Structures are given as structure tokens and as C-alpha cells.
């Protein structure tokens, strides 16, 4: 195992290339820009193509075209750029095309965007939210595998901290089980055969090879996402077996929760931590189990309250669920603000459970 000190963006780029990514297109936007720079620098040498697109919409549509040929492809931006890509994400899902989309988010945690999506139709994206660069490297490779396995767009929910932190990390290629051959991929070889292939959300096929049509195709895709929901949920949980207070968070905030949980436990407080690793599928059953018997389920997210909706849906007792996060930007509006702080989090936890510092 060889660890190198790498900026998160560089580590993620290397992980994508290790996973076989050979097409990348993106538009510069903080804090995603370094990932684009790294792919521009590294991908050609790996035999791939990186294009600095002229817009986010253009970038994801380029990546969609590359994916349609069967290549492993990716794009990315921050949440503001992903907002522009929503139509294309739905199109990818309803075309059953694999694509990895990197969201290097700014200061706000866009849980709704990452899990509900702003496209049309019945689709979801498998969304993984690493808490640090080490996890991001593994998640990146896993996402290329899941995209191909389930023929779906997938999202890596990173952020400013992950993109810009330099960490000693080993970007070693991970092994995954084989995925089905891409018999649906387009390469012109079936042109003139009488059975040419077609990728079309309406799925009506061609006269010689009729397809299921939009109704049956979209029903099948919706059922596929139900199936994925049953098998791809991932989570991390600590001290749930004796916890009376459960802190729930996702992404980078999870590191701060881990720290505060250990600190408070050392002081005798029965605190546990639960972190959805997949934002979708949300690990609802695991959360229900972890929250049983808790008198407090405190959701720490940097937004006005988004994941808390899903926590309420699955917690063993929804009445004990509270938000202890909030909107928090630094002065530039580009990164997390004062709320991303262990001391602030600790105080909020104690306030929420009715304890003040030094009164125990």
C-alpha cells in the first residue's frame, strides 16, 4: 500500500481513471474546477478524452453520448451546475445509460437535489456521500461499477472540503464483480443489419424490432429503482446499541459528528452516530434499527432542513427527530460557514438535549 499526499480532486481523478473512465467533460466551477483540471491533465495519458465544455449542459450531453457508445464516462460540477444538468440526468436514467456525475458541492448541502432530482419521470440516482477523501476514492470506483451494473446515472456527493483537502491516500484499483456486457451500446456495427440498435427514452424500437413503448419501459425502469433501493443502501453507524441520543449527518459533516460523539461519550453521554453513505437509496431500515429507544434523533446538516424529512420518515419515533444544523456559508458564499465546527456542534447537541456545559 503506497500512500501519497494528494489533493482530494486529484485523488478522485486518479480513482476515476483507475476505474476505467475514458471520457470526461465539464465546465469549470468552484469547487469542481480542480477535478476538471486533473482530468484534463491525466486522462489523455490514460488513453481517454477530456473536454472543457462550453456549458454544463453541453458537458453532460457530451458525456451522455460517450456513455451511449459503452465507454465509462463522467461529468461533474457543483450543485449550481448540477441544477443545469437535471434534464440530462433524467434522460440518462430513462435511457438506462450509465454515467458518473461528480457533485463537488459548495457550502450548502443539497440533499434534495442529490436524492429527489429536478428532472422528469420516475427515476432516481444512486448517490454516495463520502465523508473524506479516502472514502471518496473508494466511492468513485464503486460508482463506476454501480452505474454499469444497474444502467443508471449515479452521483458522488463531494464538497469543497473533500475537493481541496490534501490527504495521504492510496488510490489503488478496486476489484468488482463483472457487469453485464453492453449489448445495447451504439457503434454503427448494426447499421444495415435489419436490426439496428436504438437508444430512445420512448423505447418504441424500430419497425423490425419494436420496443416496449414509453408506458412499459418507464414502468420497468421505476421497478428497477425499487429493486436497487432494496439492495444498494449503505450506511455507517457507531454506538447505536447503547445510544440515547443519535446524531445523523451525511458527507463531510460526518467527520465532525464522529469527533463530537467520541468527545461526549468520554464525558459519559450515551451518544451514537448514524451516517447514510448512500443518500439514495436512503438506509431507512438501518436508521429505524439504530434509532430504536433513542430519546433524541438530531439531524446535523448544513441547509434549512432537507435530510431531516427522510430521517423523520424512517426513525423509530418521528417525534424525537430534530434539526440541529442550518444554512451556513462563509462570507464568500462558496463554502461551509461557522456551523461546520466541532465546538459549535457540541453546544448544539447539548442544547438540544437540555444540557448546558458543565452542568453534568
Amino acid at each position, binding site marked *: 500500500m503506497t500512500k501519497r499526499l494528494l489533493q482530494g480532486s486529484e485523488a478522485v481523478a486518479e480513482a476515476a481513471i483507475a476505474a476505467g473512465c*475514458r*471520457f470526461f*467533460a465539464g465546465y469549470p466551477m468552484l469547487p469542481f474546477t480542480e477535478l476538471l483540471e486533473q482530468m484534463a491533465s491525466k486522462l489523455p495519458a490514460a488513453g481517454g*478524452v477530456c*473536454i472543457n*465544455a*462550453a*456549458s454544463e*449542459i*453541453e*458537458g453532460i*450531453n*457530451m*458525456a*451522455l*453520448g*460517450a*456513455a*451511449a*457508445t459503452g*465507454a465509462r*464516462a463522467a461529468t461533474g460540477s457543483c450543485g449550481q451546475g448540477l441544477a443545469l444538468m437535471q*434534464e*440530462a440526468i433524467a*434522460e440518462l436514467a430513462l435511457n438506462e445509460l450509465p454515467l458518473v456525475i461528480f457533485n463537488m458541492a459548495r457550502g450548502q448541502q443539497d440533499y434534495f437535489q442529490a436524492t429527489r432530482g429536478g428532472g422528469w419521470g420516475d427515476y432516481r440516482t444512486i448517490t454516495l456521500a463520502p465523508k473524506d477523501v479516502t472514502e471518496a476514492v473508494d466511492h468513485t470506483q464503486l460508482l463506476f461499477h454501480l452505474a454499469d451494473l444497474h444502467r443508471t446515472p449515479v452521483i458522488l456527493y463531494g464538497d469543497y472540503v473533500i475537493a481541496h483537502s490534501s490527504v495521504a491516500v492510496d488510490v489503488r484499483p478496486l476489484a468488482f464483480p463483472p457487469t453485464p456486457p453492453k449489448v445495447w451500446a*451504439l*457503434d*454503427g*456495427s*448494426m*447499421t*444495415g*443489419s*435489419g*436490426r*439496428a*440498435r*436504438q*437508444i*430512445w*427514452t*420512448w423505447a*418504441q424500437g*424500430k*419497425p*423490425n424490432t419494436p420496443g416496449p413503448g414509453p408506458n412499459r419501459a418507464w414502468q420497468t425502469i421505476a421497478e428497477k429503482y425499487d429493486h436497487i433501493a432494496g439492495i444498494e443502501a449503505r450506511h455507517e453507524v457507531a454506538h447505536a446499541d447503547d445510544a440515547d441520543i443519535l446524531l445523523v449527518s451525511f458527507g463531510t459533516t460526518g467527520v465532525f459528528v464522529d469527533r463530537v460523539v467520541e468527545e461526549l461519550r468520554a464525558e459519559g453521554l450515551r451518544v451514537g452516530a448514524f451516517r447514510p453513505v448512500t443518500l439514495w437509496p436512503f438506509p431507512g431500515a438501518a436508521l429505524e434499527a439504530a434509532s430504536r429507544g433513542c430519546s433524541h434523533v438530531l439531524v446535523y446538516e448544513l441547509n434549512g432542513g432537507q435530510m431531516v424529512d427522510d430521517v423523520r420518515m424512517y426513525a423509530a419515533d418521528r417525534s424525537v427527530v430534530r434539526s440541529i444544523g442550518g444554512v451556513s456559508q462563509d462570507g464568500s458564499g462558496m463554502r461551509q460557514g461557522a456551523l461546520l465546527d466541532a465546538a459549535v456542534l457540541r453546544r448544539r447537541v447539548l442544547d438540544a438535549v437540555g444540557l448546558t456545559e458543565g452542568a453534568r
Partner: protein
Amino acid sequence: MTPRLISAFKPSLLQSSEHDLCPGCGHAPAWRITLDVVAELDLKPVVLAGHGCYTQLMVNSDVDSLQTLHGRAPAAATGVKRMLPDTPVITLQGDGDMVSEGLHEVLHAAARGERITALLFNNGVFGDTGGHMTATTVVGQRTKTSLDGRDAEQHGYPIDVGRLLAQIDGAAYVARGAVSSAGLVARTKRMIRRALELQLEGAGFTFVEVLTMCPTGWFVGTPQGPEYLEESMIATFGIGELKAPSAP
């Protein structure tokens, strides 16, 4: 005495000649010559189509096809061609798709010199939605969103995308034809052939615009379609090669 077949009922690359296009529609003859050229050159392309009446022509064709989002065919084609540099790539869009929604994508694909052949079937209306104004609707043309005729003061001017593309260095071949007469059909077919040959040579971005009749969208009878096309679109945009490599 054996007669010689000049034209089969339909091109070999058309799985079915049945379609729902209006009587007198120019899109079908334009696609016919495209498929004929592809077969004559013995190509196995990937075809990407936008959204419009012409979409069903791609659907009916025996070509590996990708249906793209409105306006985005040149972007998706970029991804396809970069991954399959030896495969011919053809995009098919209408004027609403390319010049209204997708002006950004086609200009940038040309600027990058993407080795694709972009086809524009231009009838000056959004036919599929019922006949609305697009960026190529000519001044004076009546549509459902310009019922008194397009008025420059109120609706602005049409965009000549061929002329824009001809100015871009990455564009190797830019031509405009029409299907309003058999003579122009033959001339346009030669343009499409030249564009595809240049793609195979790796010359850069190639583009053929085909002016097509839409008598329904134009509020004219089907026999008047060609005449209206000549008086409105040919009069505004012209016919010919706007940019071509110098002869070897």
C-alpha cells in the same frame, strides 16, 4: 430486354416507408437522399436525432440511433465521435432544435472541429408542436406565434446559421440545399456526399442545411410548398456551398 432499376421504392437503410409526416413534407425526400448516400458510400454510421417531425424518420431507419435532448445532438455526437473516431457520426436536427434551442451546441461543435456531419432540415417552423416561429422563420412568414407575419420590429430577424458556421475555423464544409425541385434534390445529395466524404478524411466539422417544405406550417396547399420555399427561404438564405476546402 431487362429494365434497369433506377430507384427502389425506399432506401435500403429505411426499414419502413410508412410515416405520419404531412402530405407534401420536405423532410422525407431530404432523409431519402441522406440514406442513399450512406448506402452508396457503404458507411455504418451512428445517427443522432433531435426532436421534431423528422425524428420518426430516424426511428424508421436501419441505423444505430441515439435520440438526443432538444438542441443537444452536436454535444452528444461529440461524445460518440471522440469514443469512436473511426465511426461516421451524423446528426439530424430541425431548425427549432438546432437554431433555436441548440445554437450553442452546434456553434461550439463546429468551433472544436468535431469530425461529425451535422444535418439541418430547415422548414422555418416548429412543425411538431403545430407550426410555431423558430429562429429561422423568415420575415413576413405567418406562423401560429406570428399570425400577421413575422415582423422584424416585434419578432426580430431570422438567424442564418449556415453563414455563422462558415465563419468558424473548425468548420470544414458548410452548404445549403433544398428539396423544392428534383434538380435541387440532386444538388443537395451531392452536398451531403461531399460532407460525409470530408468527415471520413478527418477534415473537420461538416454541415449541410436542407431547406424543406412544410405546407402545413406555412398555411399553403401542398403543390404550393416548393414555390413558397423558393420565395421565402431561398430568397432569404440562398443555396450553395458557403464554405468548402479548395479543390486538391
